[in-house]
Each structure stands twice: as C-alpha cells, then as structure tokens.
C-alpha cells in the first residue's frame, strides 16, 4: 500500500497524535483543578476576601518554608502510597473503597509489633513492623475479593462496610486491650525509639517514609507497565472475558491486585503510626483512605500522576490552616475546593458530551 517513507511519516504522525492524547488526558486533570480553584475564588470573594490574597496565603502555607514543604510532603505520603495501591486495584476493575479500614488495621498491627519488641535494632524492627502492617492490610482487603469470587458479592459495598468494622474494632482495641495503662485517651503506649521512623530533614517531621514512597511509586510504575502481572491486571480490568478466554487466571489477578492495594494501605498506616504519631491512636487517619481514591483518579491511575495529585492535595490541606489564620477564610473552603475537583474531574466526560451535543445542535440549526 504505502512505500517505506510514507509509512514512516504515518507512524510519526501517529506518535504525535498519541502524545497529544496523553496531554489531553493530563489536561483534563489539570483543567479540573484550575476550574475548581476559579470557582473557589468566587466563593472566597463572596466571603469578602480577596481571592488572590487567600491563594497567596494558601501557597505560602503549603510551600513557603522548609517546614511547610516538609509538612506538605508528609501529608502526601499516606495519600500517594494508598493511592498507588488503589490504582493497582482499580486497574484490575476491583473497586477497593476499603483503604481506610486497611490503613487502620495495618497501623495497629505494625504498632503491636513495635510494642512487642521495643529493644530490637531499628534495621530489623522497622521492616518487621512494615511487613506486619502490609500483611494485615492485604488480608483485610483480600477478604472482600474472596467474598466476590465465592459469592459474587460486590466488593465496593463490602469494602465500605468493612471500613466500619475495622475502624470500630481498632477503636475498641485502643480503648481496651492495647490502651496505654493509666491513660483516659484512646491510644496505645508510645513506641520505643527503635520503632520510630528516622527524620530525613532536620528540624522538620519529614521521615524516611517519604523516600520509601518515592521508591514505591517507581516500583508500582514498573509493576504496572513492565511486568506480566501488571499487564494481566490491565487487560483483565479492560476485558475480563477475553482475558479469561486467553487463559489468564482472572481470579488470581483480582485477588492479587487487592492484596497489593491492601498492603499499600497498611504500609501507609505504618508510616502514620511510626513516623508521626509514634503510637497508635483512635483517629490515626483523617480519611486518607477515601481521599486517596480521588487522588488515584485525578492521577489518571498512573503512579506518577498519583504522586503529583497527592502532593497537590497535601499542599491544599496544609496550606488551608495558614489561609485561615492569615486572611480569615475558613479551612473548610479548601475541603470545598477538593470536592469541586472531584466533581469536575468525574464530570469531565459530561462536559465533552455537552460540547458535542452543542456542536451537533449548531450543525442542525445551520
């Protein structure tokens, strides 16, 4: 059909087109964020504050000083690490909404290991705690997929319900069997120094968990795009019938993607307990497991995109309190912006549909 030079040109053209498609995809995430910030600005204006002042305070609070950067990254850690886990599950079309519960249980079992062996060398104790957290998170998530495979029970509903079981169970534990002796609070005794994650930036709270998060993002990217396991997750998520007919063990794909997802949530729990709280407390997570779903989607289920989205959300949350004290805009305005991002991002397909319809109507009218 074509001679070689033609073919080459067509292939180049195709690559250009693909790059444009990737950019459009990234653009839809960025567009949602910008649009949400604009709507947020209008709301801030209605509150009687100059939105530029408010946003300046927000950015300043999130990235203005060494400490604020550290806090932003610190907040991004649980969001990113849970988010890449959710990414793997979502890619396999397993809707893990249970990261919050997996995180709670993972944190608890990591702390229990830390409290049990307070004198072990950190180089042994910390990995042990991490593994305990990951295994617990993985098992808790795995139950939901086993129920799906065995009884065709919807994993989305089950993981949501299992969140409540996990969170209330942990609440009972820290008020009962593992409560700090003599304390009225829902918390365990403090971890020994050996069980606490080392700080990587002096005079801040930024711990080694951030480096591990970066490594896990790289690892997950490699797993999803370069390995047989990741390939099978991707194709099964797109078409489980064809994958099954082609001999892929789709049940294992479902289960293993969830095990990975739960393990990442458990690891995030370990980071929160051993890196920030230095013990297990009743409210160890302020909904990281849920926010991570949004982070994963906004990151387009790409581990590197997820990292960026996590840093964005971390910055928004950290900057919010500065904005509140500096210009008097309530921090809940940022929560509002976060959810606007969600709505606008999820609704991006509706926008393009509306635009298509408008074009069509114009054609008909013409």
């Amino acid at each position, binding site marked *: 059909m074509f001679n070689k030079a033609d073919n080459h040109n*067509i292939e180049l053209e195709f690559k250009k087109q693909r790059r444009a498609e990737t950019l459009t995809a990234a653009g839809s995430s960025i567009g949602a964020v910008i649009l949400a910030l604009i709507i947020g600005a209008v709301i801030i204006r209605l509150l009687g504050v100059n939105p530029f002042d408010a946003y300046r305070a927000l950015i300043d609070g999130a990235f203005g000083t060494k400490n604020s950067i550290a806090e932003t990254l610190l907040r991004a850690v649980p969001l990113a690490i849970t988010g890449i886990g959710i990414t793997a599950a979502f890619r396999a079309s397993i809707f893990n909404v249970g990261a919050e519960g997996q995180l709670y249980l993972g944190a608890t079992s990591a702390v229990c290991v830390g409290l049990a062996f307070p004198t072990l060398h950190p180089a042994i104790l910390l990995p042990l705690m991490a593994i305990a957290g990951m295994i617990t998170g993985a098992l808790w998530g795995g139950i939901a997929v086993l129920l799906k495979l065995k009884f065709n029970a919807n994993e989305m509903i089950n993981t949501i319900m299992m969140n409540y079981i996990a969170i209330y169970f942990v609440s009972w534990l820290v008020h009962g069997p593992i409560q700090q002796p003599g304390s009225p609070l829902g918390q365990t005794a403090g971890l020994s120094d050996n069980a606490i994650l080392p700080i990587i930036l002096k005079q801040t709270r930024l711990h080694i968990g951030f480096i591990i998060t970066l490594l896990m993002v790289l690892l997950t990217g490699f797993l999803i795009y370069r390995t047989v396991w990741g390939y*099978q997750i*991707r194709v099964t998520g*797109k078409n489980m019938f*064809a994958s099954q*007919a082609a001999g*892929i063990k789709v049940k294992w794909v479902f289960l293993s993607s969830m095990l990975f997802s739960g393990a990442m949530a458990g690891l995030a729990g370990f980071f929160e307990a051993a890196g920030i709280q230095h013990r297990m407390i009743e409210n160890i997570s302020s909904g990281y497991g849920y926010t991570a779903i949004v982070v994963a989607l906004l990151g387009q289920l790409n581990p590197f995109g997820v990292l960026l989205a996590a840093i964005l959300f971390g910055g928004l949350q950290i900057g919010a309190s500065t904005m509140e004290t500096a210009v008097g805009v309530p921090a809940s305005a940022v929560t509002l912006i976060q959810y606007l991002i969600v709505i606008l991002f999820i609704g991006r397909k509706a926008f393009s549909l509306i635009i298509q319809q408008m074009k069509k109507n114009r054609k008909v009218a013409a």
Partner: protein
Amino acid sequence: MHPPLSSQKVNLQMQGITVRYGSFIANDGVNISVDHGQTLALLGENGAGKTTLMKVLAGIIKPESGRIQINGKEVQILSPIHSQQLGIGMVHQHFMLIPTLSVAKNVCIGLKSAGYPFPNILKVENELIKISEKYNLQIDPKAIVSTLSVGTQQRVEILKALYRGAKILILDEPTSILTPQETHGLFGIIKFLTGQGCSVIFISHKLNEVMEISDRITVLRQGKVTAEISKDETNEKDLSILMVGHEFTKKRTIKPVPPEASELVKIDRITYFDERKLPVLRELDLTVKKGEIHGIAGVDGNGQVELAKVLAGILRPDSGRIFINGNDVTKLSPGKRITAGLAHIPGDRQRLGLVMDVSLGENFILETSGKEPVSKHGILNFNNIRNTSKQLIKDYDIRCISVDQTAATLSGGNQQKLVLAREFSRMPKFIIAMQPSRGLDVGATEFVHEKLLEQRENGNGILLISTELDEIFELSDRISVIYEGKILATLSREVANRERIGLLMTGKTDV
C-alpha cells in the same frame, strides 16, 4: 369490544422497501402485506433482512425507497414514537423491561399519557387488568418483573404494546427463549389476538412453528422476498429450500482427508445446562480428525455458542468428557488447554477475542504473556513483543499504522486478522472457529478461509461452527447439523447438499 374490523381488510402493506448499509443491500425491494386478524410469518436465515425490515416498521431506520400503507393510508414512519402512534407494537427478542419495577411501572416508562411527571399508577393498573382479561394474558400489573418467568415477561411486553394501542404486533423470534410449554401458551395468545382483529408479524426461522401459527408466509433470502404464500399451499420441505436456496456453491478442490487419519478431538456425551437450568447441550457427540475441517451447521441459538465455550474451557459441562489427542481435558482451565494446543476464534471477537482498549502488541501476547520469549522472570520483553507484532502484522496483512494503536481503531476485518494471527502463530493443533467471517467483507472472508485451509493443510483439526451454509459447504470435509443441543446427523462432503442440511437444521431427520 372493538367494532368489527373486517370491513377494512388489509391492515399493513409495505412495498418495494430497500435499505442499504453502505454497499450492502439489506432489503432489496421487499413487499409484505398483512390483513386484519391475520398472522404473517417472516421466515429467513440470519442476515436475510428480517430484522432490518422490522426496524423500518418500528421507525428505527428509514428506507431508501418504498411505500408503507396502514389501513389503506400511505404513511411515513418518522420515529419509534410515531410508529407506536400508528399502532405498531414491537416485542424485541431481548426484553426491554426493568426487572426491579412492577409491570404497571414498566408500562408507564416514557408514556406521558399515563400522567406526567407522576404517572397515575393506580389508573394504569386498572386499565392493564382490563386489557389483560380481554386478551387472556393473565398478568398481575402489581407484580415485580424480576419475579416473573420468561414466558410471563414476554406477555408483559405484549401487554405493554397493547396498552400503547398496538394493532399490528411484531414478535421478533419470540420462541427462541421459551420452553415448549411457554411456546404453546404464546401461540394461544397469538390466536386470541388475531381473533380480536389484531395483526401479528411473527419472525422466525423455525419451520414447524411457522407452519403451526401463521396464515401467510413471506420468505426472505439475502434481502429479497423469495416467496409469498399461504400456509395451505406449502410444506416444511419446500419452505426449507426457499429459505436456504438452491444455488451452486463453489467447492474447492482440496485433497480429501485420508480415511485412516487419526482422531484428534473427541467430544463424548457433553451436556450443559444454562443459568435457567435448561439443557443447551444434550449428550452431544463429535469427533475431529487431524487435517480435517468439521463444519457444524445449524440455526443460531441451538447450542453453538455454548459448544464453543465448553470446548475452550470457558464453560464447564455438567457431564461428558472432552479429549484432545487422547488426553482428557474436560477439567483443564482455558490456559492449560491453550498450552495443550487449542486455539479459539470466538464468534464475539470484540468481547471474547480482543481487549479493544489496549494496543495491537498487547493483544498479540494475550495468551503468551507469561511465557518466554515474551517475558522472562515475570518482566515483559518489549523488544521481542514489538518485533513479533510487526512480523505478524506483515504476515497477516493487518492494515494499521502502528503496533501501539488500540485494537478498537481497526476495522472488523483487521480485528479478525489480529485474532487469527495471534491464534495461528502459537502453532495450535486444534482450532475452534466460530462464525469466523461474521461481519467481514468478501476480501477478508476469503483471507480467513485461506488461512483456515492452510491450517488444515498443516494437519491440524478445525471445528468450524457457522450459521452461514455457504461457508460450511465451501470449507468442510464433514458437515454435522446441530439442533437443540444435539448433533442430528453427520454427512460427508460428497453426500451433503443444501436441501438435506437445510431440512436437518430445522429439526427434520426423516428425509
């Protein structure tokens, strides 16, 4: 009661209806006519143009030319809603009901006359009871649809059409999902409806049912009317010939399979029950020899899909055994069967054969991703995947721009080539080819057939399941006819002819 309608005899007339899809003529000057109180059967194979013709009536597609008259008045059917207003009611093969709602609520959907925006359910229920009693449909309008049997759900569809004022009822292959008892019940209702002055158009390819229920029969073949006759003037044998045609099909000159060729695949008394616990395959026996194409002819819906899936390991048979090369593979997973030399060209290639949203390269490795040289230690070898993919694209002449484009961007023919390339590059021994040329143009069909014959030449066994008799006759060494989940007869290439196969396809063994 309605006033007597016999004064105006002809209810519906379609003349010279022509519908084209691109260069393909789906309806070529088709005429049909139904009188009041009459049942017209529309008979024809898959793809003969029955559904297209009915879509014209339902206002879903507009014909290129032709005239439609209802009650002697010429009409243009502009939309599905307009079609309803003209008194045409369609009962689709797959029901258009919402299972979690009651019958009455289902009837109200999209009907402003039932009350808008809040339909008066009580009023509708009372009206439905009246209609149900009048036509002996025996439906409780309060019942939730999901609790009703399939036969009753079909009656709900009929009730829905009647409530909307249908005087001409189209039933699209209504018996394909019914048990014999339910079919009997449906026929009772059809007779009752026509007794009340309604007209019924009954679409089917089951000859015995057509002979039982219809007053007149219109036979379609390849978009044209081949006969328009009254039931009393014909019989099942004549009808089968009218349906499948006489014409000579080219037989390729191929070396016959030596009689001593050894048996490659043996299917021993396979039985399979579907979700409704109805038998779809009934103690089915079959063999495929090395270097043989064994064609399975049959009217769609007689167990072909399930047979292919059971052989591929996607469905588990309830009893019976499958042997490949003497090894019992009945309990093996699809993956292990693929390793044992099985290749599957599924009928629904977009759903079962390809992952539409990933690249061509990633589609090529769907079955081999875990094996060397595609991957090593669980890590994909992209160099190998790219090079192999490019070679396959060249060998199978897949028209594309890049191995990175998604399968969804290919044309139907090229998608099928992609499946063939993947399956045949694994050097399989036994190939299940289900409707391998469905939806393909002449060139792509020819290509698929040549590749299948090439595999035959290599000594591989092929089970060709197709509803296209031309394809079966052109390629097969032996031809079996599947009917209601059983093989009715197996004929050799030499003795098989269209009349005999056509009759067998309708369940008639006494020839």
